[in-house]
């Protein structure tokens, strides 16, 4: 009777981990070289006087000084904050309401779900173009309503400097609410039937159940949705280009568009990378406290 002797502890761990480590090498390579490497390269270039092609000199904070004196940059920061807050709020609220609505076992549930999710299948460019036509005062909604009889109806937000950022929010929410609805609907379906029965027995109003019982259960889905939306906000470029091209004037500029324009047409890599670095710093500043809260010392103690 042969007894299989267990391998010594150290050798066992290594032989089990080696294939795993090998499988992770390509991904690690991508993260380290491409993500981290390019990020560091971008930050390095923001301290140079690069024009169309990189020049590896050092000019200190000159590009940053120019950046913060640039009115277009300051407007774009303001815009991305307004757009970000309203877009995320709008998508979450609208997505949640749509999910609740569909969860009520309505007839034609499948068809409705498809219709609400359909805008998400379109690219931001198509969305932007369609909404541009729709909101153009001489072609779209305003003309339609005026021709139908309400001659004094105006909806010229698209060409109004104060309001154009809100048209971007409308188009963005129309595009992405469907995705949030799909994610939250999956979560809602996971809520136990018994919870509903119990709440009915206790006599709790439905809205209260949603707010105090269901939403906390949906917390992981909400976090996923928030992360996806936040990524879309930082990246927003194609929607702006298709819908308003930063206009009228520079009223709907966003940082991503600032970076792209200066990288290429303006042939000013130094200024573009300075803006990109500021975007990076902002994202890290927002995420760091959250990471600390999730994975920091308090967790370990528990």
């Amino acid at each position, binding site marked *: 009777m042969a007894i299989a002797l267990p391998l010594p502890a150290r050798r066992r761990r290594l032989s089990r981990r080696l294939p795993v480590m090998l499988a992770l090498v390509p991904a690690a390579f991508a993260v380290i070289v491409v993500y981290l490497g390019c990020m560091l390269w971008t930050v390095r270039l923001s301290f140079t006087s690069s*024009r*169309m*092609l990189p020049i590896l000199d050092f000019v200190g904070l000159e590009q940053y000084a*120019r950046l913060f*004196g*640039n*009115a*277009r940059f300051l407007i774009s920061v303001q815009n991305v904050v307004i757009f970000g807050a309203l877009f995320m709020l709008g998508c979450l609220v609208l997505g949640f309401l749509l999910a609740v609505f569909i969860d009520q076992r309505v007839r034609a549930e499948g068809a409705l779900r498809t219709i609400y999710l359909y805008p998400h299948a379109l690219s931001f460019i198509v969305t932007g173009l369609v909404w*541009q036509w729709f909101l*153009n*005062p*001489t*072609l779209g909604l305003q003309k339609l309503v005026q021709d139908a009889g309400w001659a004094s109806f105006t909806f*010229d937000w*698209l*060409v109004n*400097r104060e309001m154009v950022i809100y048209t971007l929010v409308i188009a963005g929410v129309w595009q992405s609410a469907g995705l949030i609805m799909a994610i939250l609907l999956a979560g809602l379906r996971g809520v136990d039937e018994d919870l509903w029965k119990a709440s009915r027995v206790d006599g709790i109003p439905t809205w209260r159940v949603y707010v105090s019982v269901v939403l906390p259960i949906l917390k992981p889905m909400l976090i996923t949705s928030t992360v996806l939306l936040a990524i879309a906000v930082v990246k927003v470029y194609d929607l702006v280009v298709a819908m*308003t*091209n*930063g*206009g*009228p*004037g*520079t*009223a709907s500029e966003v940082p991503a568009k600032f970076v792209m*324009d200066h990288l*290429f*047409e*303006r*042939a*000013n890599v130094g200024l573009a990378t300075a803006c990109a670095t500021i975007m990076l710093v902002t994202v890290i500043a927002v995420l760091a406290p959250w990471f600390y809260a999730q994975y920091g010392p308090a967790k370990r103690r528990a």
Partner: protein
Amino acid sequence: MRALRSLLMHGAAGVVIAAGLAQSAAAQEAEVIHWWTSGGESAAVKVFAEQFEEAGGTWVDNAVAGGVNARTAGINRIVGGDPPTAMQFNTGLQFDEVVGNGFLRDLEDVAAAGNWRDVLPEAIIKATTRENKFYAVPVNIHGQSWLWYNNEVLEQAGVEPPSTYEEMLEVGPKLKDAGVVPMAFSGEPNWERFLFNSVMLAEGGSDLYLDVLGNKNIEAVQGEDFRKVAETFGELRDLVDEGSPGRKWNDATNMVITGQAAMQVMGDWAKGEFIAAGMTAGEEYGCTILGGDDKGGYMMGGDVFVFPQTDDPAEQEAQEKLAELMMAPETQIEFNKKKGSVPVRLDVDVSSMDICAQKGMAALRDPERQIPSDNFLTSPDMYGSLQDVITEYWNTPSMDVETFVENYASAMEAAS
């Protein structure tokens, strides 16, 4: 045995023929990146394509919509190591860095053979040479300070065609009463900058224009004349309709062609659209050099083609052939007739071209009126920063002139 031999012979012949075809196809293939996508522009670039094919080459057209996009695509291709045979730029400093980094080949051989230095205007030679060597072949001179108008619309409203900005502001209200849009405008930032430069030249005069954009003189920007220019520019807002933001330039020209609008300030590439719509200069539509046909400064712009460095001798041959053909007198006349611009050679006979081209050539003969556009005088970074300031001002009716002048001056100082 005989069948096998026959098969082998046919096979070998086939291979030789294919190789020969491939050789000759590769020998004269030219991939050209450009941004001429509107009706009039495509008809014009076809002239080059047809001439090149007649000369035995294969023109591979790579049209990218939008000047910025085409230049970006081309520069990325060049920097990335897969350059096209030729690409388009505007005349001026736009391709400075591409030359400076050694990406382009010079055209001294072709230039010497064609006597370019004898037939081109001084400003064009300066704009296409670096360190005294030709790096670009200019194909046209576009006048940028033109006013285009629909004769029928003006007649019905009972107004004379204006020739200065002040006259335009005077006839504006009468045109509005007649139910047309006085000035068809394309509300994109670069056209707003274009309009501002046009006002600066026509109202402020060539001295102010050259001082501000050529010498980057901040004191001139802060002076009384510049202030007046900014005021006139602001008043032009009354002449445009509310659908103008985001409209493309050829859609605005179309408004004039179809009679929805009376006039448009645009370069003479707009003429290509009138021609494509079957109209004749002086009959259905008219043209005036802003500031007066006989004394307004002729703001020159234009297009050039540059040729990236390549080691392939077949490519190089194709490039030389292209450069030579683009400069040939007959090609110049044919191309420019369709494009709306005037030939870049001063020695061609333009009597067969329409009256607008004749006016343009007459203006060009006077060296005082040869005014370079801002492309020739400022880098993309600088005219880009000034553009941001101008578009901000145009789209903010409540902004006062002092703020605009301050912003313009700081933008000029910050950029380089």
